[in-house]
């Protein structure tokens, strides 16, 4: 029954059941809770203001920002970008496993995602420590005020995301998610991808340009 239904859906975009077309069904698929997406939009807005503020400040204090960026460790920024992308990748794989009903595999993939993300945290802490060793802190100048504010704010989001992933992994390991009850999992995964997406904008803005 299920296989026949699957074949009908995949082979015929005009397939209908109870008056709902296949394309219409796909259109309706917003992963996770609607409330989480509004929260994500709010977070993106806050970060957009910070990013634009950073860019405007750089134009007003060009030399200070060039000197400040020269003191940052670009390779650590690159490593952090690669780790967050990889962590997001494992979360996407974990969600796939959960969609297929394999809670144990999903939990294992989430643990890998968190281990990879912990590299980000270690590198970030090392980066802060090496700046403190050079007597650079949040009060040094406008560049470092913005640098510490934006990157620390992002780090807090990573930590919150990791807490969310821990809860999701525990529930997934106990097979508490199923086809009709996976919204919480999808919401947590979407939040984690948002954290990744924000770093993808933050990295070139602070470390590359």
């Amino acid at each position, binding site marked *: 029954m299920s296989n026949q239904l699957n074949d009908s859906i995949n082979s015929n975009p005009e397939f209908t059941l109870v008056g709902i077309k296949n394309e219409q069904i796909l259109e309706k698929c917003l992963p996770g809770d609607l409330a989480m997406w509004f929260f994500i939009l709010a977070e993106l807005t806050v970060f957009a203001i910070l990013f634009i503020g950073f860019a405007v400040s*750089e134009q007003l204090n060009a030399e200070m920002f060039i000197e400040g960026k020269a003191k940052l460790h670009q390779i650590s920024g690159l490593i952090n970008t690669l780790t967050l992308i990889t962590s997001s990748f494992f979360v996407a794989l974990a969600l*796939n496993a959960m*969609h297929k009903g394999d809670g144990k595999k999903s939990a294992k993939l989430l643990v890998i995602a968190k281990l990879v993300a912990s590299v980000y945290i270690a590198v970030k802490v090392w980066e802060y420590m090496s700046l403190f060793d050079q007597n650079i802190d949040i009060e040094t100048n406008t560049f470092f005020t913005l640098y510490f504010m934006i990157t620390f704010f992002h780090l807090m989001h990573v930590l919150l995301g990791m807490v969310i992933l821990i809860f999701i992994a525990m529930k997934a390991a106990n097979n508490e998610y199923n*086809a009709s009850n996976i919204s919480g999992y999808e919401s947590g995964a979407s939040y984690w991808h948002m954290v990744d997406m924000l770093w*993808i*904008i933050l990295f070139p803005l602070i470390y590359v*340009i």
Partner: protein
Amino acid sequence: MAYGRYALDYSLSTYLCDLTFMQTINSNKKNTLSWLWLMALTVISTFIGLVINNKALFIASVLFIVFLKGQQIIDIFMELAHAPKLWRRLLLGYVTLLPIIIGFIYIL
């Protein structure tokens, strides 16, 4: 009766949503290709300054890569490729408009 029909339609649509979602969107191969593409773009954007000397072109290239990476995350990792158009457009609008605004600030 009317409420019963609504509940039936709703549960079926939820089931079908999950079913089609699983088969047409979620693909480990697609995720893996997207991950490799994102990794490659990250390395390119980090070192693109070594080959592009023009400041405006360099900034535009880096910000264009931000858009490409954002689009991958939104459509593949966040699985919004088949989400309601409004939400996909909102997120894609973010990774399009923000780099454009930042680009204008730096280049103009």
